[in-house]
């Protein structure tokens, strides 16, 4: 049995109410959406807030709809991962994101967990996601209650891994995140949201709430794909994740291509230098190999998950290749101006 610590539970019905509660209680409060990450973490005493502010009654944070001009898709942060993965608009415009949402954890967790919670997921590490007894037996770690990183042994920087499936796709797709806090509302590109500090790896202040996600629909030639490496095909967090997106001309020539590799360190890694390899040509065998080599050269996983780091690194090449092969074979996402129609 893993008991929770005593806390008060609040159920505001508007974003303003939730923000006021969080601001009022300060560091003693935490927001909670689906709770699939926070509840186990509280059971492990990684967080012990005196007040939990549930966001689940805030109707304004639900819904999936195209923006007024049809240029963006708005996804309410409280949409469950099951609903996001099955949503016809998400499937049509962003198949990579739909696949990623459908690959998070297992079915029950996708029925509970939200896309907003997934974006704000705490980083993970073998030495962190353990019971208090386990962590205490090892003298705790740099991320929580201790001073030593058991992964790097000497480092003063936490290397716990960003382990969420949807953000690499949101970054690759150029999404924008909307936050609400005591200072008002603000927007931040998904690409700038994450930091390299494993202790707190986002720009979200602790009293801010992620309210919605906006993703540009792009042109008719936009495609996306996602690959995830894990030990089991269900329940597990990724050991490695690869999100790719590209704009293609009608004849298959690449106009723009982007890749994000994650679950290795605290921040999803945007692969540098892909455009110069692939733009202007078709996405085929040699080009895909060159792109995979480029990604491999930029990724150096540590043993923040107890899986051989060299094997995980070798898998970068394999999974980037597979993601790109899927992208090459994928039909255009039927974005704006497509003859396919709705």
């Amino acid at each position, binding site marked *: *049995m*893993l008991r*929770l*610590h*005593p*806390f*008060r*539970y609040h*159920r505001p019905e508007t974003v303003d109410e939730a923000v006021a509660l969080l601001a009022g209680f300060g560091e003693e409060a935490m927001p*909670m959406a689906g*709770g*699939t990450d926070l*509840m*186990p973490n509280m*059971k*492990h005493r990684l967080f012990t807030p005196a007040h*939990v502010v*549930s966001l*689940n009654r805030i109707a304004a944070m639900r819904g999936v709809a195209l923006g007024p001009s049809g240029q963006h898709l708005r996804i309410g942060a409280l949409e469950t991962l*099951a609903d996001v993965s099955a949503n016809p608009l998400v499937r049509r415009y962003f198949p990579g994101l739909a696949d990623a949402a459908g690959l998070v*954890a*297992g*079915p*029950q*967790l996708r*029925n*509970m967990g939200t896309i907003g919670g997934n974006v704000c997921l705490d980083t993970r590490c073998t030495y962190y996601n353990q019971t208090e007894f386990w962590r205490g037996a090892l003298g705790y770690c740099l991320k929580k209650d201790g001073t030593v990183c058991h992964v790097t042994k000497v480092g003063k920087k936490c290397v716990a891994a960003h382990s969420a499936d949807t953000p690499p796709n949101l970054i690759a797709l150029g999404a924008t995140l909307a936050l609400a806090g005591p200072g008002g509302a603000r927007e931040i590109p998904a690409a700038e949201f994450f930091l390299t500090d494993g202790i707190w790896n986002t720009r979200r202040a602790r009293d801010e709430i992620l309210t919605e996600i906006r993703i540009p629909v792009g042109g008719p030639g936009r495609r996306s794909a996602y690959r995830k490496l894990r030990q089991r*095909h*269900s*329940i597990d967090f990724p050991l490695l994740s690869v999100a790719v997106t590209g704009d293609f001309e009608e004849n298959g020539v690449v106009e723009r291509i982007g890749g994000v590799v994650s679950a290795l360190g605290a921040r999803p890694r945007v692969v540098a230098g892909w455009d110069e390899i692939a733009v202007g040509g078709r996405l085929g065998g040699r080009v895909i190999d060159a792109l995979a080599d480029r990604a491999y050269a930029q990724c150096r996983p540590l043993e923040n998950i107890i899986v051989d780091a060299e094997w995980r690194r070798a898998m970068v090449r394999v999974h980037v290749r597979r993601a790109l092969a899927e992208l090459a074979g994928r039909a255009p996402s039927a974005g704006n101006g497509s003859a396919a129609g709705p």
Partner: protein
Amino acid sequence: MEVVRLRVNGDERVCGVPTHYTLLETLRYGLGLTGSKQGCDKGDCGACTVIVDGRAVLSCITPVWEAEGREVRTVEGLATAAGLHPVQDEFDLNGAAQCGFCTPGILCSSVALLDRNPSPTRGEIRAALAGNLCRCTGYEKIYDAVEAAAERLGDR
């Protein structure tokens, strides 16, 4: 302690609970419904699966307050006065349970699936049960049982 009002298996239930209780703790220790099992107790194993508003969820990581105003169904609510739910009966007939600890959760995941999708493919059954771990035996007899139950429900 605070009073929580739940609708469980069609009954209105009122119960005093500590404010940090989970739905699972309330079911087991507040209402005496011990069919839902406390396995890993942190959202990995699926033994605590119940059906809330038609969807399979994990009661061990659901704060009890999130279940207020919603329809909760547990393994105790699957059978009726007329007899076992066809999924329960087919689990029995197909030998789909061994020690039985994972069974209540798997039954709930299966019923939630069949209520949404009355004639699932084998692959859809596997996907729907991918969040329920059985450590005794394989899953084949479990899939067989759900398939057989779907056929029986379809024949009605």
